[in-house]
């Protein structure tokens, strides 16, 4: 391995560089080796699997190494609705989560600064959903939004929902669940940047006769951009790959199945490994491209 040429760190003038390099190597090697074995090579196996062909005359789930580009064409065309739903639902859920979270983060980070106890109590409440099982809190919403629930009865009584309407099993319920489940991921990074926001900039805005809305759009939002970027990424990426909310037993139906549902079904039920692998690679590639473009556009490359 080429770890041999470690340069000495700025803090370590007193020590000979070679000795430092051995320590750094000993510290790095086990963990990096682990990540290569259980993160990098699995991705490569996924790529190899995605090109496999069916074993002629073989059983279900038996494949041979091949270079079948056709797998990508077939799975992308067969599962195009799932792909579009995954990124569409994730996008809408991310926007909703941002709209819901920003005022919460702003209040905790800026307005509640004078009361540290209130601040930490509210932060605890924001992360509280993390401590109850992800699946159970989604199932709780399924019951609350179910056809027999008072919520649905009330919506029907005021004719917002037609008499034969449902909430569960609709795109609305799936997006609702995605939004709810990832709100803490959005709120925390927003809070971290807003907590450091220098309120003198806001005073400067109003001194220069900007109304509160202009000050918010021209001062607060640009200054909290790092939080907005990491919050939207932390929400969008898991939401695009999620298959719990869209699953039939949870908030979705067969009409709301997302890319994650297709990957799960092909891998674990149908044993159609090449299709599952090709869909996974598509998901990963689209996310990496979107993230790359998004981060570059917003000019915060140092975030990565």
């Amino acid at each position, binding site marked *: 391995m080429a770890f041999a040429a470690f340069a000495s760190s700025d803090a370590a003038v007193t020590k000979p560089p070679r000795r430092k390099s051995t320590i750094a190597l000993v510290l790095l090697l086990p963990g990096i080796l682990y990540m290569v074995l259980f993160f990098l090579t699995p991705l490569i196996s996924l790529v190899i699997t995605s090109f496999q062909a069916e074993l002629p005359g073989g059983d279900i789930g038996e494949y041979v190494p091949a270079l079948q580009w056709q797998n990508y064409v077939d799975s992308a065309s067969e599962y195009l609705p799932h792909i579009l739903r995954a990124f569409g639902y994730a996008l809408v859920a991310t926007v909703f989560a941002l709209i819901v979270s920003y005022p919460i983060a702003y209040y905790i980070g800026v307005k509640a600064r004078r009361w540290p106890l209130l601040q930490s109590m509210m932060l605890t409440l924001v992360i509280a959903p993390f401590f109850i099982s992800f699946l159970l809190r989604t199932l709780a919403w399924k019951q609350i939004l179910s056809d027999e629930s008072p919520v649905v009865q009330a919506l029907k009584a005021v004719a917002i929902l037609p008499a034969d309407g449902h909430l569960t099993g609709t795109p609305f319920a799936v997006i609702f669940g995605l939004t709810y489940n990832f709100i803490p991921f959005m709120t925390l990074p927003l809070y971290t940047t807003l907590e450091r926001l220098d309120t003198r900039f806001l005073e400067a805005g109003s001194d220069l006769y900007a109304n509160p809305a202009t000050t918010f759009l021209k001062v607060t939002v640009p200054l909290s951009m790092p939080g907005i970027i990491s919050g939207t990424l932390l929400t969008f990426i898991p939401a695009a790959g999620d298959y719990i909310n869209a699953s039939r037993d949870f908030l979705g139906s067969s009409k709301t199945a997302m890319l994650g549902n297709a990957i799960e079904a092909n891998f674990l039920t149908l044993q159609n490994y090449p299709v599952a692998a090709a869909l996974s690679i598509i*998901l990963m590639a689209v996310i990496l491209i979107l993230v790359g473009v998004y981060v570059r556009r917003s000019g915060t490359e140092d975030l990565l």
Partner: protein
Amino acid sequence: MTAPPLETSNPSPERAAAPRPRRRFAGLGLPIYVTLALVFLLIPIAYTFVFSFNDSAKSNIAWRGFTFDKWLTVCNEPGLCEAFGNSILVGVVATALATALGTAIAIALVRYRFRFRSSISLLLFLPMATPEVVLGAGLAAQFLALGTQKGIVTVILAHTMFCISFVVVTVKARVASLDPALEEAGRDLYGSPAQVFWRITFPLLLPGILAAALLSFALSFDDFIITNFNSGAVDTFPKFIYIAAARGIPAEANVVASAVFIIAILIVVVSQVSRSARQKRLAKLG
């Protein structure tokens, strides 16, 4: 960006008075909204907790009266306590492994300069930017290719992998805030490298390491997607719920989730109180 000296720019008294009347109306909307939003976030938690006391028969959907029984006889539900035990075992082992490996990486990344530094950072960042379903399917494809039998070991291997990145991020911040002069002082006083590490570096890093371990355990305990791809016939607590969801969740699952919730909140509150007490002590000293 540096803040210009704004205080002196407009010394007129009207400026201080101007925002007052607006704040009386606009200032109330935000707290009300935030309160409602926090209540909204807590609804499913309250629901889960309340329905852990439901005197339900098979599925736990309609309210059929209050009972403590489910709390007292949790393990009567077949498979539940076994799945819970598996979750604890996986969480503890994966956390220990990930914390050890990740802390070592974090120290190396902050303290030493070496080649391939940016590729190593990328290797550690990528798992956090990869959807869980891809991580899960990738590992499952690798175990399939190698002919590995899926079980609790493969679950532990998978969980350790995604926890390492989070440990590195958490501990790195702590290492970066550490004053190297303290370790130099230790070396100046003829401390051996091992002594300097265990007597100075490690105690100073401990809060960061503990935070990373707690985060790892929480991530591992609640993980479903990666587990589902790599567990074979073994159930963890989330997988138990996923399988039960098709036929109706027993109230006993709500009991386990509520108990875990209470313990987790207690840990958070205790650590917050002790931290603020420590800060007060330090403020007094300073």
